[in-house]
């Protein structure tokens, strides 16, 4: 530890700390332009220059990278320094007169109208001020090495290799994040195919999964995390005080033996981008249902306020039902929950704003306890119900006001007219659909899917939680769209079925089994390899095959293959099937 003196204040710091950090500790402000908390000090803007006195000598150094030495005296506000700062700012203002950080700093440091005229004067508000932070981030922190400086002197600028789009760029956004003038921006090029993000707003690779996650601990998405792509960054680990971040963590694969499986893999939300006429992903202020839920949530991106992208309150909100459901082009089924949550949205928007609210519906499905009463209550709240599926959402300007907004074109079938409703915000009621990977799950557990894509129950009325495979149960939206009370009921029912089987201690199995008639078996072993369950073993002493009745599931493949007709199946023996044939044809 060494002690130095900054502007008359004494401060003790670890040896080799920079003067800038020491000044921070002492509470002395030193202006910087090219300094960033993420990277090593760069020292190019010279704005942080201070006067260092040691003994009789005084020098001007850049405080951001000059290490302290014991007994040092630093003047950050001497006349020389103040003149130096003003000159630097005049130089910067003469070149970038409209950049906000430059102007603000110039004003703060008392720099007046510049005495200089720059040959490279750039009037843009987001001009690059050559601070080099983006380059340092990309090369030293992210370690992608895409950005760099080219040319010298007045021609110096930040470039990509050969001025072309770089394949090395991992699109981490670090450069855009640190750029002080907004010169570098992240642009979403093509919406199509992008999975809808339900937490609006920027999301970093390290994030808390949902608004009400339990446990409320962040996770790292290794696909977008810089460290997993280039080996660099680790900024999160560096700032984590309890050192809770471990990049070496690996997936653990655990084998667990179970007797029964309950599949509750849920649903995916229909991607409204597939219906281009509603403008989702193309127009501002058009939201999917789950996006709007996150807006309404008090821990969401707007803190629960219903506001447009520009922060203002909407004057009118349109809620469009049946997006992707009850539609021959997408899903013919009804998604069950949308009418009720659309009414809920209307109620909350009415509660929080003065906006006019319009609902565009085909039928109002208020099927549950208290649902119809809630619908009637909403009618009293003055929500406008338009019976007619909205045809399209277009851009429109409200007359008189001139501010850009949206327009919903629809047919109002109850009055028999076409209407155009001006709104500021559109909320879509996306259909629930089967998960993208439901085919993988289906094969894993040998369950079937019904025509709507959800998992098939054993019987739609009498057995909605079992599947045709013994021991595999389904519950919740994996079986079909449903709301929370129904999901809870179904899940409890499935759990009860499972528990009753566990508590029984033994399982009843179907009597359909294959069996070897040993006198006919020639020991050819053709059947042994055919069984998918490995239920047939060869008994060498007797030179015959034998079926393990506990493993045999009764498919009969071995029965069909047996050349000696030694293998028969209880319930589906050759004689039985031939008798059926006789009955059918003769």
């Amino acid at each position, binding site marked *: 530890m060494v002690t130095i003196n900054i502007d008359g204040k004494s401060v003790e710091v670890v040896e080799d700390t920079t003067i800038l950090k020491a000044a921070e500790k002492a509470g002395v402000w030193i202006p910087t332009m090219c300094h960033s908390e993420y990277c090593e000090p760069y020292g190019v803007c010279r704005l942080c220059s201070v006067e260092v006195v040691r003994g009789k000598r005084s020098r001007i150094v850049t405080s951001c990278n000059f290490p302290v030495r014991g007994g040092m005296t630093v003047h950050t506000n001497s006349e020389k320094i103040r003149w130096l700062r003003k000159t630097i700012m005049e130089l910067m203002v003469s070149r970038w007169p409209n950049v906000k950080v430059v102007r603000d700093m110039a004003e703060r440091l008392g720099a007046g109208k510049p005495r200089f005229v720059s040959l490279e004067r750039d009037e843009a508000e987001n001009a690059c001020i050559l601070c080099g932070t983006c380059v340092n981030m990309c090369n030293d922190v992210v370690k992608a090495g895409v950005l760099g400086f080219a040319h010298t002197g007045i021609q110096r600028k930040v470039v990509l290799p050969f001025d072309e789009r770089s394949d090395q760029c991992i699109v981490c956004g670090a450069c855009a994040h640190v750029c002080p003038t907004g010169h570098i921006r992240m642009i979403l090029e093509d919406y199509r195919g992008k999975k809808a993000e339900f937490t609006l707003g920027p999301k970093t690779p390290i994030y808390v999964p949902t608004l009400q996650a339990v446990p409320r601990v962040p996770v790292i998405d290794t696909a977008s995390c810089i460290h997993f792509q280039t080996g660099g960054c680790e900024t999160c680990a560096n700032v984590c005080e309890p050192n809770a971040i471990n990049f070496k963590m690996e997936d653990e694969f655990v084998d667990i033996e179970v007797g029964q499986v309950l599949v509750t893999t849920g649903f995916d939300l229909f991607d409204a981008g597939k219906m281009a006429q509603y403008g989702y992903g193309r127009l501002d202020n058009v939201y999917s249902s789950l996006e709007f839920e996150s807006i309404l949530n008090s821990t969401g991106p707007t803190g629960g306020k219903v506001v447009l992208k520009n922060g203002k309150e909407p004057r009118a909100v349109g809620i469009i039902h049946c997006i992707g459901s009850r539609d021959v082009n997408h899903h013919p089924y009804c998604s069950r929950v949308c009418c009720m949550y659309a009414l809920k949205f209307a109620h909350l928007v009415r509660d929080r704003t003065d906006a006019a609210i319009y609902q565009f519906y085909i039928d109002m499905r208020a099927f549950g306890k208290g649902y119809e009463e809630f619908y009637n209550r909403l009618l009293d709240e003055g929500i406008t119900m338009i019976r007619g599926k909205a045809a399209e959402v277009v851009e429109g300007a409200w007359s008189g006001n001139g501010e850009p907004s949206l327009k919903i074109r629809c047919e109002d079938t109850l009055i028999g007219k076409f209407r155009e409703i001006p709104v500021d915000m559109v909320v879509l009621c996306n259909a629930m659909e089967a998960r993208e990977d439901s085919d993988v799950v289906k094969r894993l557990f040998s369950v079937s*899917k019904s025509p709507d894509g959800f998992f098939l129950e054993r019987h739609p009325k009498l057995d909605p939680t079992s599947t045709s495979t013994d021991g595999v149960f389904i519950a919740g939206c994996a079986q079909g769209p449903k709301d929370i009370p129904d999901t809870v009921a179904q899940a409890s029912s499935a759990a009860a079925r499972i528990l009753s089987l566990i508590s029984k201690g033994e399982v009843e199995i179907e009597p359909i089994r294959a069996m070897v008639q040993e006198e006919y078996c020639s020991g050819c072993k053709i059947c042994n390899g055919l069984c998918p369950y490995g239920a047939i073993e060869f008994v060498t002493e007797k030179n015959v095959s034998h079926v393990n009745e506990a493993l045999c599931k009764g498919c009969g493949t071995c029965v069909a293959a047996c050349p000696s007709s030694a293998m028969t199946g209880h319930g589906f023996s050759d004689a039985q099937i031939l008798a059926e*044939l006789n009955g059918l044809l003769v």
Partner: protein
Amino acid sequence: MAFEPKIVGFLCNWCSYTGADLAGVSRIKSAPNVRIIRTMCSGRVDPTFILKAFQLGADGVIVMGCHLGDCHYQDGNFKTIRRIPFLKRLIQGFGIDSRRLRLEWVSASEGDRFAKVVNEMTEEIRGLGPLQLYVHKVALNAGQHEMAE
């Protein structure tokens, strides 16, 4: 009177039989000519059943099972896809048109596909006409004699 084909269908219990059931429950109209025998798996279908069916007077036989990869018993339908195409070529040697034997994959949710396949096959067999096998006449005559006795 128009020729009404007699078609025997071997349907696997888990996929195609359930699919046929769905077609019925959904009231989809399909030709009544397919007479269904249910087996647990399409892999149970012994080629001798099919030959016996033709012998007993079936004009066509259709075997239906789960889609490949979806078999309730993992790979039973792979055995079927080994046997039936081979049999199709074999029956030509017996004088039976190979179009009279058909293999289709119908899943539990494909009620309309079941109806479509049944209708298509019925029309095809109707076009081919009744199956005339020498063996038929012998067997039928023998059967009539037995019944008379």
